[in-house]
């Protein structure tokens, strides 16, 4: 009831705002002697007003807007599960909102991938025509990018960063809620693009194609700009939280590695996300105002877009993969029962990626026709980024060496991140090297490579995190047998699919095509079948999660005997997180160090902080 009311009032005010926008456009256009309705202009202004209306109606007016007018603020409170449908300031509620939303989006976008593989089973057109294929491909791309950017950061990051640093909430709880409630309009806009012709320009939206294509591009642009806002504001919130809200004693040298990875990721999001937004703003202005950023005939330049776009979109892959590294290292240390090896170097590696990440973007443009003198520097910078990445591998491999590896599902997923990224990293060298990239650019080799890094590095990390923290978030235990089945099924079919996919790329199959030469039919059939197996593995996951959340056995507070702060409180955590603020004494990963504790709760009896795995 509460839930319904909250969302319904958001929808209502959103619609009012939308039509207000349409009306304003109609009035202005009418007065200046144009048609009252122009699809692109009206949608743009309608969307902006509708978005504000939606946010206000869904709860921002009561919790925030009133303050600007000197009125008393209030929150809509809802009991039980219904609180997940309200504008809630609790970072744990927001974390789960993000996580569930993006798993649903992940499954939808995965369904898109299945349809594409269906079409590509044989040469020639079977399931789709070219137009439909391009629409599905673009939608798969942008939805998966959104999942990769926000699922771990927004979901697990929101839930666990405050818990792991001993804070009672994020620094700006209202801002945090705002970032989540921007997501439903984004999803709605993207999912409605097929009704306006479908985005045929892929997720990269290169002009001039994106300027001359259907009006659905406007929906795409507005959605992505809004999503960028989410990413920036979320990143800002994380940075301030981690700098100012750490528990007493939690120095930078004792910060859990997952928190470090979120910190670095947040800087990336804050620094670079504007690139995508500005690039799409330029496309939008070219489209609705007839401006000339990319029209070569009137002084524009299509390469401008690529520079601005990749200025964000290369760092974006680190926004995607660093949280995966963070979770993997976190899990590997706890399940190896050993301190995280070379902790300082691992942190240095993350910071090194942050530093170098901003100066490598043009390696996506080696064949773009940009000036020749740019190739060398970007080649060097791109190869150099393998050095800080190597430090992450050092930490992982050094930790498992001589460890007491406990091979539960989170650990298996954590190790798989290292395995997959080793493959993705090595194939990256071929793409960083200009002479090989000239042939491989825009082929299935690239497709295989980035699926290895993003899916293999981040999505596997996401699953590691979900299984690892499932008992903490729900208070119940998942089914270990089904989880292991999911792991092996997903791991093997993933590797078969994408390892084989390198080969058609070398052979001359370019990406984003609905059809290909007949000589590549056999390998594509093989890839399609193993891709279907990969897709089917998520049925096991969804069943396990849903069933265990409702009916699973009640979990202990600390089933993994882990030392970090979030495991020292009840599962699921109480609304206020900690009955009293924790005091941090030692390193979070000091397994095997006698008498060491990470955090204590002064006043309460000192909790055994997970050390000495076997008590």
């Amino acid at each position, binding site marked *: 009831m509460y839930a319904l009311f909250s969302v319904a009032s958001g929808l209502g005010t959103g619609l009012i705002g939308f039509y207000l926008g349409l009306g304003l456009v109609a009035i202005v256009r009418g007065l200046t002697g144009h048609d009252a309705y122009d699809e692109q202009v009206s949608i743009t202004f309608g969307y902006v007003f509708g978005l504000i209306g939606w946010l206000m109606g869904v709860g921002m007016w009561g919790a925030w807007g009133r303050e600007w007018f000197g009125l008393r603020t209030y929150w809509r409170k809802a009991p039980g599960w219904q609180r997940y449908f309200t504008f809630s300031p609790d970072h744990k509620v927001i974390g789960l909102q993000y996580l569930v939303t993006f798993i649903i989006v992940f499954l939808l976008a995965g369904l898109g991938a299945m349809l594409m593989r269906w079409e590509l089973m044989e040469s020639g057109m079977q399931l789709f025509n070219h137009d439909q294929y391009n629409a599905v491909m673009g939608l798969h791309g942008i939805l998966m990018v959104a999942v990769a950017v926000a699922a771990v950061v927004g979901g697990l990051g929101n839930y666990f960063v405050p818990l792991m640093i001993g804070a009672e909430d994020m620094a700006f709880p209202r801002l945090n809620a705002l970032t989540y409630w921007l997501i439903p309009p984004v999803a709605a806009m993207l999912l409605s693009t097929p009704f306006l012709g479908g985005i045929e320009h892929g997720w990269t939206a290169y002009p001039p194609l994106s300027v001359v294509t259907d009006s659905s591009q406007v929906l795409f642009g507005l959605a992505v700009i809004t999503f960028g806002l989410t990413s920036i504001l979320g990143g800002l919130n994380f940075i301030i939280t981690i700098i100012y809200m750490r528990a007493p004693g939690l120095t930078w040298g004792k910060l859990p590695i997952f928190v470090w990875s979120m910190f670095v990721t947040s800087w990336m999001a804050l620094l670079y996300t504007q690139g995508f937004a500005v690039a799409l703003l330029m496309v939008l202005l070219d489209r609705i105002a007839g401006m000339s950023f990319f029209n070569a005939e009137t002084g524009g330049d299509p390469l401008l877009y690529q520079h601005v776009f990749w200025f964000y979109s290369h760092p974006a892959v680190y926004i995607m993969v660093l949280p995966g590294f963070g979770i993997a290292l976190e899990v590997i240390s706890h399940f190896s029962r*050993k301190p995280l090896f070379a902790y300082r170097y691992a942190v240095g590696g993350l910071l090194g990626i942050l530093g170098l990440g901003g100066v490598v973007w043009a390696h996506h443009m080696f064949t773009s026709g940009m000036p020749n003198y740019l190739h060398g520097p970007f080649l060097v910078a791109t190869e150099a980024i393998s050095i800080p990445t190597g430090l992450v591998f050092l930490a992982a491999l050094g930790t498992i060496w001589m460890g007491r590896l406990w091979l539960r599902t989170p650990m298996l997923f954590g190790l798989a991140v290292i395995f997959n990224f080793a493959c993705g990293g090595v194939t990256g060298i071929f793409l960083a090297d200009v002479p090989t990239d000239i042939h491989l650019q825009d082929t299935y080799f690239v497709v295989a490579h980035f699926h290895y890094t993003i899916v293999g590095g981040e999505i596997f990390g996401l699953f590691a995190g979900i299984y690892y923290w499932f008992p903490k978030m729900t208070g119940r235990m998942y089914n270990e047998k089904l989880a292991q089945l999911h792991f092996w099924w997903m791991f093997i079919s993933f590797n078969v699919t994408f390892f084989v996919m390198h080969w058609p790329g070398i052979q001359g199959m370019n990406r*984003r095509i609905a059809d290909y030469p007949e000589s590549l039919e056999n390998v594509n059939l093989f890839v399609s079948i193993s891709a279907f197996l990969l897709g089917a593995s998520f049925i096991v996951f969804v069943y396990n999660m849903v069933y265990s959340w409702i009916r699973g056995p009640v979990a202990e507070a600390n089933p993994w005997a882990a030392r970090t702060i979030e495991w020292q409180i009840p599962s699921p955590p109480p609304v206020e997180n900690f009955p009293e603020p924790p005091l941090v004494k030692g390193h979070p990963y000091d397994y095997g160090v006698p008498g060491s504790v990470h955090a204590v709760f002064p006043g309460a009896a000192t909790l055994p902080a997970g050390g000495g795995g076997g008590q």
Partner: protein
Amino acid sequence: MRRHVIAAVAVWVVLTAIGETLALADLYPTVGSSEAEDFDRIFRILIVMGMPVFTFVIAVLFYCVIRFGSFGKPSEDGPAYRGAGLGPRVWLAVTGSLALTVMIFPGLTGLAELQPDKSGYGWGESNAELVVRVVGFRWSWTMEYADAGVTVSTAQGKELVLPVDTHVKFEIESTDVIHSFWIPAFRMKIDALPGRTTHMTVKTTALGRFEDDDAYRVQCAELCGLDHSTMTFPVRVVPRAEFEQWLQSQKPAATAQ
């Protein structure tokens, strides 16, 4: 400890040997130009260089999982190595020098061969013996043999004919959106941009034609909308004499238009 190190190194060596053997496999499409030979060579070098790195990670992972792993809860904690000593510095030095090596060879050296001068784009000298002007449009190509005044496009026997053993320079433009001019058999590609001309040079080395081998095709490699996937153009590489004949045979048709 020493026992484990020796065993893990043995696993690494075996895996590397297997990997390097597999890397010798012929993964590549037909070789049609000297650029393609260079590409295949550099690709192989990179596999040979990258394989030990890859197998090192795999070897350590598998060794640790099999020797140190258990499905039950471990009864004790592992040894508290912190990795603050010499180890990480050695690692940093090794990975650093590996990265530096790849940057210089085959990275920058290959790049220097690829771009002999500021405007040229393609291996080898850019003193082209034949210049072909390529215009990309949605969704096909026009090939213009500028010196001979011959134009080939969809209407007139759609085929890009090139003489063998010749430096060919392509001058590429686009009339609408961004396309990319790519011939898999030559392993070279460059985008076709509206508003500017890009260049690409290849030296053909082998005869071949699209009907026998689809690596001999121009393929648009930059998403350009609806019929992007079928924006192809057959290529035929013929002996020089035959090329001259073909060019002559095209001329009257071109002037008649």
